[in-house]
């Protein structure tokens, strides 16, 4: 019983720390990557996964209590909306005239909608 609790605690702590680490990495990506589209990759993916991971950590810790349910809700909601936000920003950026970085090698979208 106590082993199980400890194990779950450990797992939840693992998720929790992983989440933090990912968020941190995502934000470094935000800093380092060359243009807005690439930065979006960093924040959307690892940011979201980081947050989701922290939420999973919580759920593992408290179970399906009110708090757990809420954590699940937050996680799912992030999963649902983060890509949309990224998509909206990227699209707006492109149509707003933000060019791709110099390393970029192709732009199908720009060819069609210019």
């Amino acid at each position, binding site marked *: 019983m106590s082993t199980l609790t400890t194990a779950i605690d450990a797992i939840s702590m693992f998720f929790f720390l992983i989440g933090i680490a990912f968020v941190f990495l995502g934000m470094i990506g935000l800093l380092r990557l060359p243009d807005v589209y690439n930065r979006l990759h960093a924040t959307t993916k690892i940011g979201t996964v980081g947050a989701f991971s922290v939420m999973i950590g919580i759920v593992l810790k408290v179970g399906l209590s009110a708090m757990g349910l809420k954590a699940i809700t937050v996680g799912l*909601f992030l999963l*649902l*909306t983060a890509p*949309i936000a990224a*998509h*909206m920003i990227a*699209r707006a950026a492109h149509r707003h005239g933000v060019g791709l970085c110099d390393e970029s090698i192709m732009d199908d979208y720009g060819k069609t909608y210019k």
Partner: protein
Amino acid sequence: MTTLITKTVTKICIPLIILFSISLLLAGHNNPGGGFIGGVMFASVISLTYVVFGLKNVKSFFNPEWDKWFAFGLLLASMTAFAAIPFNHNFFRSAVELVHLPMFGEIELVSAALFDTGVYFVVIGSLLYIFKTLGEEK
């Protein structure tokens, strides 16, 4: 016009967020939340529909008179507070009643919740009134 993808996700989000706003309103007395926060949530989601579907399109099927909403809210809030006077109490004297309902068990009915509902309507009405008025400007 926003994209198909955004519209689809927004459709999913609307009832979810509105439910959340109601939940914030109802839970406010015991948890973070309350009329203002719930109301802003509601106003935000309507504003989201305006953004995503376009104000004109939304107005074609969903166009309440927001000014009446906030007027009603203020009326509700003040009348709730006023209701204490006929009971020989001072204005704003609150009442807490425990009611036993068959399936729901012990339910705490608080007069303040009604007041908070008034707040909720005022926030929704006034914010959306401002948004709509500004949005209708060419």
